[in-house]
């Protein structure tokens, strides 16, 4: 018989509500040496990135290699990459909630946290990219008397609104979901920690009335967040598609970017949750069943992405437009400047996920971890391939040149990863990274006086 997800991958459930509490709260215990080492590494890398940024502020944008015609380099590539990573969390928590997918329960909290931290990371890059950080308030439509008003016709402005809306809704959605679980942490802690958790849990007592309002609010935010998952990366894609630049001006970009974002986001969830599961021994809550479903999401979105790559090339060829043909075939020319980037992108995003069509591979932790890491590299390469190659090889051959990031840009890229990991590691140790209350909904309700009630 065909493999049935309901019987083959069903998660092991904790025995009782009390056991669920104890398992999740265990993360609050004294951190291990490995955790501290990871945290120290992340902070160090983040500080290095901060120092690189300082160098850029100190010496000017000249220390970065972005210049005409490649005015968008690693900073914008990385910005789009992190916005993409921020997609999966809300997809998993909101859309899978609305379609009643059960496998989200074990993984959605960590995914939501990943979303918030990834968008926080992405939001750094417009600031970094513009150089004069002290004038970044120009992004926002504040009242003033200097006749300064942003250009609402610019997709870059749409981006500011799309991403800030997405961040706001995702953060609130994340926090609303956390409230009952923080109350459990509060009830199991003492002293100052208890006071802090008490403050964060907003006086949650678990009364019927509170649950009623909580469920209504949660459903409302899920419905509000779901279209934002589509809109935010569509708007990001229009940063490119609105331009007349060959290789950018493409109608397929919005769904193509959204699919790519979900692919990278799900791959990142696998990359983050896999080590956490082993480190905190969460096998009862996050196991093969969840990872397999995440892998299936990756397989689906990878297929959509492959379709989009193929359609871009086919229509570029079919159009008989020399500029369209020139850019697409130059990108794919192995001897051209960025040919390697194209083939690396195709390998990582289209070919590497193919083994996940095989059930055994989807259930192998190492295969999951390695392929997810490859996809993350591939998704960064995709943005590099789109952004850099089109600018470096635009209409006027006199402007063609080869862009390669400087060490400052690489440093800031690494620093962004350090910033993201630092936040995530702190989150894992201070807040419930697995949704305790929803896990409990999968356990038979306790009967007064029985073992399950203890």
């Amino acid at each position, binding site marked *: 018989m065909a493999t049935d997800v309901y019987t083959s991958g069903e998660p092991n459930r904790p025995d009782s509500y009390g056991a669920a509490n104890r398992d999740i709260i265990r993360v609050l215990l004294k951190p291990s040496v490995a955790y501290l080492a990871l945290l120290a590494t992340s902070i160090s890398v983040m500080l290095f990135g901060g120092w690189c940024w300082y160098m850029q502020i100190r010496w000017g944008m000249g220390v970065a290699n972005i210049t005409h015609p490649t005015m968008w380099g690693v900073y914008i590539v990385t910005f789009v990459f992190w916005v993409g990573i921020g997609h999966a969390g809300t997809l998993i928590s909101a859309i899978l909630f609305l379609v009643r997918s059960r496998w989200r329960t074990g993984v959605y909290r960590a995914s939501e946290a990943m979303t918030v931290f990834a968008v926080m990371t992405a939001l750094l890059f417009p600031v970094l990219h513009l150089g004069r950080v002290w004038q970044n308030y120009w992004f926002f439509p504040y009242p003033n008397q200097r006749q300064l008003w942003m250009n609402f016709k610019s997709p870059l402005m749409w981006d500011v609104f799309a991403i800030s809306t997405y961040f706001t809704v995702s953060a609130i959605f994340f926090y609303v979901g956390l409230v009952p679980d923080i109350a459990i942490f509060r009830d199991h802690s003492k002293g100052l920690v208890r006071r802090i958790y008490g403050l964060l849990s907003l006086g949650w007592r678990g009364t019927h009335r509170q649950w009623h309002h909580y469920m209504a609010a949660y459903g409302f935010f899920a419905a509000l967040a779901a279209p934002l998952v589509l809109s935010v990366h569509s708007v990001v894609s229009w940063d490119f598609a609105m331009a007349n630049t060959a290789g950018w001006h493409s109608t397929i970009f919005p769904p193509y970017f959204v699919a790519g974002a979900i692919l990278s986001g799900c791959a990142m969830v696998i990359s983050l949750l896999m080590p956490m599961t082993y480190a905190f021994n969460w096998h009862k809550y996050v196991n093969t069943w969840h990872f397999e479903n995440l892998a299936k999401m990756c397989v689906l979105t990878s297929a959509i992405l492959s379709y989009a790559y193929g359609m871009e090339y086919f229509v570029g060829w079919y159009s*008989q437009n020399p500029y369209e043909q020139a850019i697409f075939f130059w990108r794919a020319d192995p001897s051209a400047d960025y040919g390697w980037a194209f083939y690396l992108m195709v390998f990582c995003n289209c070919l590497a996920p193919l083994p996940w069509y095989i059930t055994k591979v989807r259930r192998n932790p190492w295969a999951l971890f390695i392929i997810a890491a490859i996809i993350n590299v591939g998704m960064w390469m995709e943005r590099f391939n789109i952004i850099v190659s089109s600018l470096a090889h635009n209409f006027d051959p006199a402007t063609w040149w080869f862009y390669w990031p400087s060490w400052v840009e690489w440093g800031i890229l690494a620093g962004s990863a350090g910033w993201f990991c630092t936040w995530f590691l702190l989150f894992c140790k201070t807040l419930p990274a697995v949704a305790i209350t929803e896990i409990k909904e999968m356990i038979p309700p306790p009967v007064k006086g029985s073992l399950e009630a203890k």
Partner: protein
Amino acid sequence: MSAHPDINVVIDGIADRKVPGIVMGVGGLLVVIGLVAAGYGFAVAGAAPTWGAILVGLFWSIGLCQGAFMLSIILTGTWGRWGRPIKRIAESFWFVLPVLYVLLAGFLLFGGLGIYKWHPTPLAPIEHISIEPHNVAATWRSKPIWLTPGFFIARQLGGLLILMILDFVYLRASLGPDMLQAQERLGKKAPGWWNSFIGGQSNVKRASEAGQAVQSTLFWMIGLAYALVFSFLAFDLLMSLEPWWYTNMFGGWVFVSCVWTGFCAVGVTSMLARDWLNLGDWIKPKVTHDLGKLMLAACMFWAYTLFAQLLPVWYANMPEETQFFLVRIGGEEGGLTAWRWMAQTVPILCFVAPFTILLSRGVKKMRWPFVAICSLILFGMFMERSLIVMPQVYPDVSDTFPTTHFLVLHVGVWLGFVGLITLVVSNVLARIPPLVTSDPHLGDHPWDQHVHSLDAHHAH
């Protein structure tokens, strides 16, 4: 687990089932209307508008039937339990495809290609323009390769044939075990031709397991083949009517809209035929509620992908892109007014009305309102396809919409295809098990009883 309704009621109903006279009558009448309309077209309106009307009807019908079949594929691929009661109804639309395939071959071989600008005179390669070092000599002259009659016809017929064969293997794996189960109960009352689907199997459980395995193996292949075949059908049959215009979202936009029409067709059939097929205990309001939600999602996706095409074209304002829209939408820069009302009607029929109406929970659960909204969308998609094709087959029209030809020819031919689908699907459903009786995923999962507080709320 909740108790299942009795599947024997469904099986027993197969034995003496006949298509109601009114269905045969209306279906037959619609086919006659279609034929008369086509005759009127060739005699009065001219060959190009008539072939255009046939193309619209064909594309709409092929998309609808394959799209309906894709609902079954989606249910298999996502392990969806909610839609199992309508899985067989979705699969029954496959039986129209061979008929439509023959009609498509007739269209391609007997004059339909005449409406394409690249036939019979192939498009000239672009003239030399100085864009060195973008060397024009190195530019691939794709149109003379891609848009040639032989290759064009082979692509359409070959691609669709491969897809239909894959569909059939899947269909046989789904239908065979149910036929075996029904045969065991009905005995000699079961039709003899079922044996070709049963294929020598004698144990229902083993046949069902084997069938599920085949379906699980094939669903992604069919999904992939569908996306590719329908993308190229869209590029070729529709987009190449205006051979210099291109948008790479077009294929995806069309194949998603075909799935959407398929959902609507399954919705209409489920609501109208559920009592006739003894499926009243299975196709409950919650099933159509879920189908309606899927339709709402497809509606939003249609609008999203249309907007994704319109916005960059409007923003960039390049003549080679805008002219396709200007002809239809009209405007100050050389747009025509003849097609403007259609361009205004399509978003209302395909987005504004369905989106607003499908937000209602009640509409998705009540028979006649649900049939009405499904029918509205199906008509809206006919209008959408007409808007793509008609301006290409009435090149001389500038300000006056060809109202008579539209009402008599285009709507008439489309009604003919509606009649054809009605006749085939109703006759098929009268002769096969209308429910996936041996499917292990038929019925609720135990977890559905205790998943989330909102689920309990939803169930009531």
